[in-house]
Each structure stands twice: as structure tokens, then as C-alpha cells.
């Protein structure tokens, strides 16, 4: 996964002189998660810029550069720090094209690391991507495989609008096939990662892998679960989700973010709204516990949905 993202960035740097990378520790250190390792030597300090610890400045200057005709990739080390840049993201990046009547575009990619499970405690383990997914003017993508990571990143570089490109700290090691030939993955298209007929497990980010594990366990009990990966939170592929539920008649929406006000709750609403007569039970929203993320490993495990919880949820709610 790490290599797929890195490859996408290298391709862009090599093919498009307007592309540059900026963020904390992206240069000399090679990126907090080593995605831009070796980039500084290869592309030089004008294309790979280490920034001060000032997220508002990082995003703000990215917005300005994008308005001026460049295609910046800014890196916010973790989504937790994006709170400092929220005004730049929500009030500037997301609004400028609209408020200028389309005269000015903001082709900006904001790469950021989200999610918990790495023992980084309450302020470094949040999943805030759903907040951004509620903002018109932004796009939010979240790849879960190397194939999607590269395919989506390629599409991001063709975009003229600001995009939040989410990476999960625990997914960098995920392995998978990436074709040598060029391909891309459209933004706004969900994917059935595993077909099944009894229940839809709808997820994004690391929760997709949890859903896949759960589906495997359920299969051993004769329950065929379908795993649907959003890939994009905004725009959301509602049609694919509804289609899946119309096939299976049951759904669990799984995410790491807090259940209260969670993006998954909105998906559950959409499914009730658009597939009501096809449902054999209420859509269940399984999110993270409504607590600041505990540091203690055993408690942290309890706060994030895992495969066993998904299996239990399916069995309790649908009698499967």
C-alpha cells in the first residue's frame, strides 16, 4: 500500500511540473510513514518541501498555490492535526471555486493519516474523515488496497477540486496486486470487495478489512456476507449501496469513527430511506465507542469494532 501511494506521487511529480509536495517531515525524514522516502534527493527541495509545524499554513499555502495554477499535494501528518487547518479546508479550499463563480479552481490534494488502533491515545487516534465528507465542495476518498490507492491517486491528480485523501496507519502494510499497465479508479464508485447474499457489510477504510475478516468467519457458519467498500465518502455511491442491500436485505454499516453523528449513521439513514421495503430488519450502525480513544491496548481494542463484534452483530440482529 505504501509503495502504491508512493508510486502515484512519483508518477505525478515526473509527469506534471505543477505538482509539488509539502508537509511536516515529508522531505529529509522521508515522511512520518515513509511514503516520500528518497523523494527529496530525487526531486529536490522545490518539489518536496518540508514545512514548519503549522497546519493552517501548510493547507493555506497549498490553497494559494492551487489557485495560482499549481497542483499541490499537502500532507497533514494525521487527521487529528487537520483541526488546526480546518478553516483553510472548510472555509477556503472548499468554497473558493463556488464563491468565485468558477473563476478560480483549487486542485489541491490533502493527504492525511486517520484512524486508531496504533496505541497513540486520545488525541492521535481519531477518525474525522466523516466530518469532511459532510462538507460540500470537498471530496473525500479512502483507499483500502494498493490497487485502489494508486488508482484513486491517479484520478485525484486529474481533479480540479480539493480532495482529502485518507490513509490508515495500519493499512500501509496491506499487500495486493497492482497492474503494470495504466489504470485508474474513479472517485465516487464503491466496490463489492466480496460478494454474498445474506447480509451487506458496508464499510470504509480499515473497517473494510475487519468486514472481510468477519465475512470469512460468517462463511464458516453458512452466512454469505457481502462486503462493500465505499472507497469514496464524498461523493458517495449510494446507488451501489442500495443495490447491495436490495440483494441481501440486511446491512451493517461499520466504521471506526464514533457512532454518534457518524458518517455510517447517515448511510444507514439513506438505506432505510431508499431500500425500506427490501429490508428484513433495521440497518445496524456499528461504529467506534463514544469515548476518547483509550491508550491502554486492551481498552483501545474494545473501542474499535473488530471482526468478532461484526459477526455477533449480524447474528444478534438478523438471526443468521
Amino acid at each position, binding site marked *: 500500500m505504501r509503495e502504491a501511494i508512493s508510486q502515484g506521487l512519483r508518477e505525478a511529480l515526473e509527469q506534471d511540473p505543477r505538482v509539488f509536495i509539502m508537509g511536516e517531515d515529508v522531505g529529509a525524514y522521508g515522511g512520518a510513514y515513509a511514503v516520500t522516502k528518497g523523494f527529496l534527493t530525487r526531486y529536490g527541495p522545490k518539489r518536496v518541501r518540508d514545512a514548519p509545524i503549522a497546519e493552517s499554513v501548510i493547507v493555506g499555502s497549498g490553497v494559494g498555490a492551487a489557485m495560482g495554477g499549481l497542483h499541490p499535494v499537502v500532507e497533514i501528518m494525521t487527521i487529528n492535526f487537520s483541526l488546526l487547518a480546518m478553516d483553510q479546508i472548510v472555509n477556503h479550499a472548499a468554497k473558493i471555486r463556488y464563491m468565485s463563480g468558477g473563476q478560480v479552481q483549487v486542485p489541491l490534494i490533502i493527504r492525511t493519516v486517520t484512524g486508531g488502533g496504533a496505541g497513540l491515545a486520545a488525541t492521535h487516534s481519531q477518525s474525522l474523515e466523516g466530518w469532511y465528507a459532510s462538507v460540500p465542495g470537498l471530496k473525500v476518498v479512502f483507499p483500502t488496497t494498493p490497487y485502489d490507492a494508486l488508482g484513486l491517486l491517479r484520478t485525484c491528480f486529474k481533479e480540479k477540486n480539493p480532495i482529502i485523501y485518507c490513509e490508515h496507519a495500519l493499512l500501509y502494510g496491506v499487500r495486493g496486486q497492482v497492474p503494470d499497465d495504466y489504470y485508474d479508479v474513479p472517485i465516487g464508485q464503491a466496490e463489492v470487495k466480496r460478494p454474498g447474499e445474506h447480509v451487506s457489510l458496508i464499510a470504509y477504510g480499515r473497517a473494510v478489512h475487519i468486514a472481510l475478516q468477519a465475512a470469512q468467519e460468517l462463511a464458516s457458519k453458512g452466512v454469505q456476507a457481502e462486503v462493500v467498500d465505499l472507497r469514496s465518502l464524498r461523493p458517495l455511491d449510494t446507488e451501489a449501496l442500495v443495490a447491495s442491500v436490495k440483494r441481501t*436485505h440486511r446491512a451493517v454499516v461499520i466504521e471506526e469513527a464514533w457512532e454518534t453523528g457518524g458518517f455510517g449513521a447517515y448511510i444507514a439513514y439513506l438505506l432505510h430511506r431508499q431500500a*425500506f*421495503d*427490501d*429490508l*428484513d*430488519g433495521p440497518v445496524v450502525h456499528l461504529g467506534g465507542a463514544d469515548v476518547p480513544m483509550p491508550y491502554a491496548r486492551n481498552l483501545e481494542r474494545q473501542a474499535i469494532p473488530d471482526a468478532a463484534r461484526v459477526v455477533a452483530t449480524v447474528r*444478534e*440482529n*438478523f*438471526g443468521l
Partner: protein
Amino acid sequence: MATKVVMPQMGYDMQQGRIARWLKKEGEPVQRGEIIAEIETDKAVVEMQAYASGVLRKVLVPEGVTVPVGQAIGVIAAPDEPLPEDLTTPAAQPAAKESALASAPATVPPQAAAVAPTPTTGEVKASPLARRLAQEHGVDLGQVRGTGPGGRIVEADIHRHLEGRQAAPAAPQAVPAGGPTAAAAPAAPPPPVEEVEPHLVELTRMRQAIARLTTRAKQEVPHFYVSAEVDMTAGMELRVQLNRALNGQGVRVSVNDFIIRACVLALQKYPNFNAFYHDGKLQMNPRINIGVAVALEGGQGLMVPALLDCGAKSLADLARASKGLVERANKGGLTAEEYGGATFSISNLGMFDVDSFAAIIHPPQSGVLAVGSVRPRPVVKEGQVAVAQTMHATLSVDHRVSDGADAARFLAEVKRLLENPVTLLL
């Protein structure tokens, strides 16, 4: 603390309710929110929740009895708590009157929600998919056992039910040898008929109320019928004159108004037909309130609102009052007494080109007069066949109240009055 369970108000116009069924017995534990009884209003049977947890210590009003809103019908308390004396004796007598066949359009005002459980239409818990499948396959959800969470009927239950139905042994089709079919010509097999499952349609509240009350009437009230042909020739002429005289006063006298007036005068002479049968006694009603069967616009159903205090009303008064009554029956705005206060009813299908029909008595009333169309018919007058404007009237009578001879006298009186219509003006 002991809590009184009272007859809830389940609609702005509800004054009384009947205990259709107790779902809890004396001594059984109940949880707040649990359904403890089914209450029959004149609109529907509605579930009633407990508003306290504990044990249903006392059932003060048994099933089948109607009591006014607010009357205590039971007591919920802790298992061994002593009960205050006023909560242990069945209070008051059952409400005397039944209300109209079907009452106001089923609108529930907002405040009703605060005082009464919301009437539930679907008493069966089923998933939307299960409901859809049940409808598609004509499955009665009440016959399906739910295995989902909390007993919810889910998809699998419907499939199981359908499989069970198919597995049921088919009716034997053996034909006795040499029977009629053997003699029949060797017919080609009939073309396959596409099986279309019958589907179920939910009844409106009003339809349910009509179904319930007419069933009860036919089960409990021993009906008999007497009929007569009434010569309306003079009445029709008088009606033309009257309406000419009333021209410009915004009221027209109808044939029905003549019939109402004739019935009022006949009821004054034969008050049994204005009485209610109650537990072996006759309740003689001092007022004459004539129920007028009204088919609601748009086929919504039937109501029998009452014209109150008809005894002292002239023909023109009745005409005015019945016009207003029919309008309000359609728009809503009848008073509670108009809903439920009729003492005798008239059902008129004259406008539909009907010769004659027999109507069902609406309890607790003891009679109803059904009239058909007025039209020219051959009659014998002084040994000659002549043409007259006639109408067939059929009186349905509760045999507990009156016998055939009484009924014949009553009907003859109605006929005499209608055939001598000047008497209706007195």
C-alpha cells in the same frame, strides 16, 4: 403505589369504550408500556398500554362492558400492597348508550397522543421485506410465527410459512368410477390458468367498525321484517306545493323528510319502536332522535347520525336540520350526541333505483325503516288498475321488543300518514 387504570380517551370525540379483551389476568405482572387490554371505540379496536409497572391486582370492568372515559377499569400495584377500598369495588354502571355505527373521520387530534396510546394499525411485528412478501403471496401475517429479534417476522419466516402451505396435503381429487365425468365426452385438457394469488386489502377504520357492529347486530338482535307498498302520489304533489311555498327560504323538503316526519308521528303513537332493549328491560326514550343513514361521499363508508328531538319539529324544520346533518356528516363536525344518540333509524336507497331492501338494526335501537324508490307503478284502485307513485317500505324490528302484529300496526300507521300527507303538516 397503587395506580388506577382508567378507560383512556382515544380520540377527541370518544366518550366511552368497551373492553374488548383483557390481555392480562388478575395477578399477572405488567410492565409500563406493555399492552394490557384491547379497547373497542366506535372507530376501532385499540391497544391500551399500562402506564405503571407492577401487578394487575384488580380487573374492575370485565370484557364486553362499555364504560365512560376516565372510569377506573383496573388497578396496578405492588404484589402485596394493600389496596385502598375505592379501588377494589367495581364502580358505576356501564354507560347506557352505544354510539353511532361509525363515527367521525379518523382524525386524532394532537392532544390525544398525550392521553392515550396511539392506535396501532399493524399489531404484528414484521420487517418491511416480510410485509412486502406477505402481501405479494397473500399471507396473513397473523398466521406466521416470527423468529427474528423480539419475535419480529422476517423474510425466512414467510418462506417457511409458504413452504408449509405448499406441503399441506392437497384435497383428494379422486372421481368415483362411472361418475358423471366418465360419461362426459373426452374433453381436451383445459388451457392452463395462470394462478393469481388473491391479495389482502386493509380495511379502513370505518369499514372495520361497520363490520364489527353489523356482525354484532345480526348475532345479538333477532330481526324480523314487515313490508308494505306506500302510495306516495298525494305526498309527491304536496311536496311540490310545499317547495313552491318555501321558495326563497333556502330549504327544500325531500321525500325523506316526509318519511322522517311520518315515522316521528308513528313513534309517538307506538313508543316501543323508540325504545332500547337492555338486559330484559325496555328503556323507553322520551326523545325521538331519528338516525339517518348517510353514505359518505367518495365511498368512504356509512354513518347514521341522528336528527335530535324530532318530536316537536315541523316538516320544514326537519328538512333544514337533515340538510345540515348530511353536510356535517361528510365534512366532520357532528356532535357526540348526533353520532350516538339515534333512537330509531331510516335508511333510504330511493335515489339508487331500488325497489325494496331490508336494513340491519343498529343496536341498541330496536327498529329501522328501509325505503326504496318512489316511482310510477300499477296499483288497483276501486277494482281498476291505475298508475300511482309508490314506494316499498320495509321495517326491521328487534323481536325482543315487539311482535309482528305491533310491527304491522306501526308500519300501517307510517303508510297511513304518508298516504294522507296533510297529517304530516299537523
